[in-house]
């Protein structure tokens, strides 16, 4: 076997230019599949990361999945209610402090509670409907992505006074207000209070930038006349993938609807599945094309070596020896090509990651984006496995054919 290895290496080393072409052919195939896979998976991960980043991982609201059962239904098996109109309950999460504490005892991550209500912002004769969210600045900053999107001020500024408010920059522009302006907020209960703008944020999401206003939790409770009430607990988990499990457990424990981000974005994630199919098809096609290129180059070399097969056979080498010789040659070229391909793939990924382009968000032109790339050893392993298999097959098949040929035919043809 050592003799076979040496023969193979000498063969390869003896044909400088052809060897380089073959190795480059393999390397380009491997390199481009790696880069494509990194890009494809990178964009997907980036998309999900943005999704996960801007949303709470689990949102617990004061809704229930099904209508509440009447106590009598639980007591008497034969009881059935028709056309019942339940008495209006006190809305919000009951006993929020206990609920929050029990969650805190086991949820792996951070959480924030808030009271979300609807209201109208009134300024300079304009009325704009908004979501008013009462928060605790400290915990909110740890959960919400808005904390990182402030153009002016911060959540902390809310704490400076009970009548402070932070709004989206879109909302401020619409009503012509700016930091320091005092605006009127009218709640559905009819309560109306003046708030001073102490911060502006820009998330890039128009619906939020024009439709959200944050105040202290206490202020929101006063506005909606629901002292001590909250109707929204948001969790930010250490591991976003754990969201469905955490949501299930929270729902079982508290009885309130807990929505993991996967459920909230079901349609988007379904679209991603389709995109994944496209992605794997594209990467697979690249690998296939590369595989054919590799096959072509190596089988050409093997065919050119048919004369050597005849010579070696006349010297006493067997068919099996010949098949192994060219299998080794194919694999050696595939291996060398894979290694160079890894380098090419790595450099391509690096070059792609340097590409910057501007996404003009709402005329602000603030966002400089890089191509998202995902680095995974699997890309490298799969691409080179593919290269090795196709170069092995490319060496083996023509060699098997040539080894079966009568050396006499080859010797005669060689003249």
């Amino acid at each position: 076997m050592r003799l076979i290895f040496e023969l193979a290496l000498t063969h390869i080393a003896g044909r400088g230019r052809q060897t380089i072409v073959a190795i480059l052919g393999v390397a380009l195939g491997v390199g481009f599949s790696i880069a494509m896979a990194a890009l494809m998976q990178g964009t997907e991960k980036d998309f999900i990361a943005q999704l996960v980043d801007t949303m709470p991982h689990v949102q617990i609201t004061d809704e229930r999945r099904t209508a509440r059962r009447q106590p009598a239904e639980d007591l008497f098996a034969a009881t059935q209610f028709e056309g019942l109109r339940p008495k209006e309950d006190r809305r919000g999460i009951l006993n929020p402090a206990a609920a929050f504490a029990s969650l805190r005892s086991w949820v792996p991550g951070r959480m924030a509670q808030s009271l979300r209500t609807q209201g109208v912002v009134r300024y300079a004769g304009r009325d704009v409907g908004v979501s008013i969210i009462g928060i605790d600045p400290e915990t909110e900053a740890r959960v919400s992505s808005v904390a990182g999107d402030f153009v002016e001020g911060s959540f902390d500024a809310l704490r400076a006074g009970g009548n402070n408010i932070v709004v989206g920059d879109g909302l401020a522009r619409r009503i012509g207000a700016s930091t320091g302006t005092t605006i009127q907020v009218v709640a559905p209960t009819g309560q109306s209070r003046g708030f001073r703008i102490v911060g502006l944020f820009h998330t890039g999401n128009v619906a939020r930038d024009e439709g959200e206003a944050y105040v202290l939790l206490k202020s929101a409770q006063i506005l909606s006349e629901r002292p001590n009430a909250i109707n929204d607990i948001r969790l930010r988990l250490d591991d976003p993938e754990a969201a469905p499990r955490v949501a299930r457990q929270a729902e079982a424990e508290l009885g309130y609807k807990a929505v993991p981000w996967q459920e909230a974005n079901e349609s988007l994630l379904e679209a991603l599945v389709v995109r994944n199919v496209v992605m794997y098809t594209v990467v697979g096609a690249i690998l296939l094309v590369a595989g054919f290129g590799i096959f072509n180059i190596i089988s050409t070399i093997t065919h050119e070596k048919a004369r050597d097969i005849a010579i070696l056979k006349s010297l006493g080498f067997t068919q099996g020896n010949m098949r192994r010789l060219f299998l080794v040659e194919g694999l050696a070229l595939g291996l060398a090509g894979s290694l160079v391909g890894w380098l090419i793939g790595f450099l391509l990924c690096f070059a792609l990651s340097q590409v910057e382009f501007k996404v003009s968000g709402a005329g602000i032109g603030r966002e400089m984006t890089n191509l998202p790339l995902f680095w995974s050893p699997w890309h490298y392993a799969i691409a080179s496995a593919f290269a090795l298999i196709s170069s092995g097959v490319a060496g083996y098949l023509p060699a098997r054919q040539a080894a079966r040929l009568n050396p006499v035919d080859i010797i005669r043809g060689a003249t």
Partner: protein
Amino acid sequence: MSLLIEADHLTRILPATVPVTLVRDVSLTVGEQEFIAITGPSGSGKSSLLYLLGLLDRPTSGILRVAGRDTSSLNDHALAHLRLDMLGFVFQFHFLLPEFSVLENVKLPMRKAGRLSSGEMRERAAGLLEELGLAGHLDKRPDQLSGGQRQRVAVARALANDPHVVLADEPTGSLDSKSSEQVFQILRDLVRKRGKTVIAVTHEMDIAARVDRRIHLVDGAVVSDDRVAPAAV
């Protein structure tokens, strides 16, 4: 005199839409220390017969015994082994591996046989090459040698495993007259001095005239098999 090769009604038909008979019902025996030329017009099946005798091809019918063993029942592996032990080949074109040095080319059959240590192989290969007048060319590539030198390397390679029979297919066919004469002398010395049997296919009457035995083929069949008294050295 023991028989090295016994051919019994060998026929080789090339399967095609119109089958071509390359070798027709050839029976002959080859003993030790014979110097044989196979002659005949082109297309008369000279080379085909040589390849059959050299186990590179299998007969369509008939029986071929090499060193007393019936070759028809041997598989590819066993045939390769028998070739390795018994036979050495020299072709019209040198057929050296271009990527290997002269020395490596000669060592190749020894390495395949694997009987000698690496040092012994080197020594033996160098010895053979020196005897053939190639002492200064051991580490050259085949393409750095002249045609006659290359053919001598091919002879050295054929002798690598000390075979009983050297089969030569037009060994001087592509050489000028001076190199031809050299190669012929070498082949004759193999018979006279080393006791090998040489079977050479040739169409050069000059060479055919000076061997011990001439087998003449026409249309694949043996028309004459003359033994002549050894010519004076």
